[in-house]
């Protein structure tokens, strides 16, 4: 079963151009179909893997030989989220991405208004849908694989398709940020590959469980170098503080549907890989405090930069950096509560940030500007879109009826439960970051509802195809926020999979 999660979207991704040969619109209907399939398979697998992880050995070679997939609670939880968000965003893209013809002159004039171009210039959109599916296949592969080189390969599938998608609109800012992203990403992946090579040299195996089992048999210094290389390489994609220079550019110049996926899925998958490597493979409990510090630093830098932005998509992108910092901090607490809270925050950030980018994308399309001030009075013209945006913003800040509240609450409780002074100080700083976050999100909401628009005669609500995915996000945010028990079981067993590396090793190697 877990093989299908990767094989079906991968096969359909390459089938997109073929189907489009016969019937043009087929291209845009394939991603929703593939992702709906993935969502169903993940949800069917979920109850099974809560009891026992499903290990698939490809080619019939038992691990540690051959390549294996490990569908534990963490992997299936992530693949379900990827499929869910991917499905909703691809439904949104049915209307958002479509071939529009306009002359090159208008294009350059509008080139500063990223995302205004409703989709793509002349030319087919098959490439968009193909790359989109490939990106999500890469993400699913990263979370399901049990082989560290295979993780690198899927990571590259994810990265290369996201470089291409950032540049998809082909205007100035998109190309520039894609080049920056590509250079930093390529250096990061090279470091990752060197780390993988060193590990292979040390242990003669690529199976993550097998490496984890033997990690204590060599001196800590010789393990330290590959760990630093791998964490740095993955940290570029996860946007951990000193390595995140590419993120605000790339996330703000991509088409809005892609920004939603990059912010909601790509960086989370990067963070998953970092956490999997540190928790499971290296079991490096001594660097958790360092990671917590890095997390808080990332949080504060991200929130402060977001506060000073006038461009709404850049603001959301910096806010993603801040949220990643908070998640990293929560995971680095490394208690059962902490990891559960971190994973919960990850789910809540994925849902809320995807919703925010989708809503903002449509508002940008209507107003033709990325400035926050251009959104004045939109609350009356596009009530439903603005309602969705507001709910996403409130959820991200952590107001009670929404999903952001239980997740942040769990993190605070976990940090205080450690009874360590430094965690209390750090969680204080995290709450300061949340206050800053509240300040800039409330500013946008105020602009939406309480300022009268001057110059925007245009503006009507989004079409129904766009509203449906947004309101499914809203429904999920509210339902899980009111009734967090729905997900806590899954999150608890995912957290215990990450914390108990011995169980992981035993379940893979048998």
């Amino acid at each position: 079963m877990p093989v299908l999660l990767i094989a079906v979207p991968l096969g359909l991704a390459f089938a997109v151009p073929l189907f489009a040969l016969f019937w043009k619109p087929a291209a845009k209907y394939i991603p929703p179909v593939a992702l709906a399939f993935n969502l169903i398979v993940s949800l069917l697998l979920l109850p099974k893997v809560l009891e026992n992880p499903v290990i698939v050995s490809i080619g019939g070679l038992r691990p540690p030989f051959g390549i294996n997939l490990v569908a534990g609670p963490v992997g299936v939880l992530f693949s379900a989220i990827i499929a869910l968000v991917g499905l909703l965003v691809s439904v949104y893209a049915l209307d958002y991405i479509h071939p529009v013809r306009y002359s090159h002159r208008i294009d350059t004039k509008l080139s500063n208004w990223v995302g205004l171009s409703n989709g793509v210039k002349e030319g087919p959109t098959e490439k968009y849908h193909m790359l989109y599916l490939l990106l999500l296949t890469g993400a699913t592969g990263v979370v399901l694989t049990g082989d560290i080189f295979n993780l690198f390969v899927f990571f590259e599938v994810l990265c290369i398709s996201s470089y291409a998608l950032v540049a998809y609109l082909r205007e100035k800012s998109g190309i520039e940020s894609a080049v920056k992203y590509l250079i930093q990403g390529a250096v990061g992946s090279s470091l990752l590959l060197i780390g993988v090579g060193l590990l292979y040299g040390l242990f003669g195996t690529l199976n993550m469980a097998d490496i984890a089992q033997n990690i204590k048999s060599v001196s800590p210094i010789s393990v330290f170098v590959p760990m630093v290389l791998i964490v740095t390489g993955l940290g570029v994609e996860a946007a951990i503080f000193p390595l995140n220079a590419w993120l605000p550019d790339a996330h703000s110049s991509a088409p809005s549907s892609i920004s939603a996926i990059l912010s909601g899925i790509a960086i989370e998958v990067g963070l998953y890989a970092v956490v999997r490597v540190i928790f499971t493979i290296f079991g490096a409990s001594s660097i958790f405090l360092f990671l917590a510090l890095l997390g808080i630093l990332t949080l504060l830098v991200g929130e402060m930069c977001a506060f000073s932005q006038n461009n709404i998509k850049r603001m959301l992108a910096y806010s993603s950096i801040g949220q990643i910092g908070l998640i990293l901090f929560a995971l680095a607490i490394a208690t059962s509560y902490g990891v559960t809270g971190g994973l919960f925050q990850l789910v809540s950030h994925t849902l809320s940030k995807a919703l925010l980018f989708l809503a903002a994308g449509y508002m940008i399309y209507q107003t033709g500007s990325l400035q926050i001030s251009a959104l004045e009075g939109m609350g009356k013209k596009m009530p439903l879109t603005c309602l969705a945006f507001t709910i996403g913003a409130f959820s991200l800040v952590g107001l009670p009826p929404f999903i952001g509240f239980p997740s942040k609450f769990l993190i605070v409780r976990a940090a205080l439960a450690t009874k360590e002074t430094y965690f209390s100080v750090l969680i204080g700083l995290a709450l300061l970051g949340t206050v800053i976050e509240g300040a800039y999100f409330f500013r946008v909401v105020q602009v939406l509802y309480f300022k009268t628009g001057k110059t925007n005669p245009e503006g009507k609500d989004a079409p129904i195809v766009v509203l449906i995915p947004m309101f499914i996000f809203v429904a999920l945010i509210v339902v899980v926020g009111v009734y967090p028990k729905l997900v806590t079981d899954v999150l608890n067993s995912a957290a215990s999979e990450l914390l108990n590396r011995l169980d992981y090793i035993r379940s893979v190697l048998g």
Partner: protein
Amino acid sequence: MSFLNSYIYYIGAFGLILIGLYIILVKHNLIKVIVGLGILDTGVNLFLISVGYITKGTAPIFSRSGIDSEHMVDPVPQALVLTAIVIGVAVLALALSLAIRLYQHYGTLNLRKIREQKW
């Protein structure tokens, strides 16, 4: 000398990696940066190959007589490098096509002059 003999591949590989990183960090021209990426990739691939290499080893083909397993090189790194080369080619091709687009927009490839996006 024995040190050089046994570690020559590692020295070469890390030399290439450092040269590649130096080019990426220091050079202003995008094409040169992409060349740097290529050199970095080559260095990494050479490193992976040398992890599995043994002196005077041959290909691990069991059907040929007269070769025992002690003189075979490790085939896994070679499979890895094959994959890594393909990935490297894809990244370089994408980078070059982006460079063409960038030149069309800005009329220059000097990365210090292309600074529309900032904090």
